[in-house]
């Protein structure tokens, strides 16, 4: 996955479904009842989210349950992980420099 997962969240209905799944894993029927779109439309959105690596599905009895994919959601986390890695490396270099203007 490159940025497809994040592009998949460009649609407001898909974002709503994604957020709904972030709070609780759900079946298509449950999502369709809460969303202002048809059940086939919800299925289509779920397919896009799934293809993008943001959600996974699993058969539980006669229901297919959708939930967030930890790896896909991790992409967002990875931004900040990378950012802090870079920032803290710079911090370390600054902290380890010999002190000049400050008292020790």
């Amino acid at each position, binding site marked *: *996955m*490159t*940025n497809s*997962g*994040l*592009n998949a*969240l*460009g649609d407001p209905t898909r*974002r709503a479904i*994604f*957020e709904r799944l*972030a*709070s609780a*894993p759900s079946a298509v029927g449950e999502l369709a009842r809460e969303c202002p779109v048809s059940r086939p439309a919800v299925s289509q959105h779920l397919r896009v989210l799934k293809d993008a*690596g943001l959600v996974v599905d699993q058969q539980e009895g006669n229901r297919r349950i959708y*939930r*967030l*994919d*930890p*790896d*896909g*959601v*991790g*992409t*967002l*986390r*990875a*931004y*900040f*992980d*990378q950012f*802090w*890695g*870079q*920032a*803290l490396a*710079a*911090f*370390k*270099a*600054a*902290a*380890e420099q010999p*002190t000049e203007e*400050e008292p*020790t």
Partner: protein
Amino acid sequence: MTEQATDLTVRKALTVEAPQERAFAVFSELMGSWWPLEGKSIGSAKAQTAILEPRAGGRWFERGVDGSECDWGRVVAYEPPSRLVLNWQISADWRYDPAINTEVEVRFVAEGEARTCVELEHRGLVQAYGDHAEQVYAIFDSSDGWGDILDRYAKSAGS
């Protein structure tokens, strides 16, 4: 597994060859000496430095080359030399937004007279950015050098 799925907390830890007081001071009062500004300033002017007011309730902001200031958030806890909590209130479109509440906690643990373990936690990301992820991506992607790094991360996260 499912807990992890919604928990976007970023955790980092590193050891710094510096006394605890010094590590704390560099992170807070002397933030301008190290904070990476290139490509990531939010003000209209090019950012010149990052400033953190050393007290609870203090401002955390960037100052542009023209002297203009742009808020990033607030100092929530200022407990030298061991703990610092900041609110990072930057929205997905990279503007200051007091409604955003991601929280950065930094702990400084002395491991000797001249060595400190620094632990950082950035919390609240999914609440703040989960619904704007594509904008966040676009911003980071447009910044110098970030696109490649993020693509590599995204590939490893998704493969």
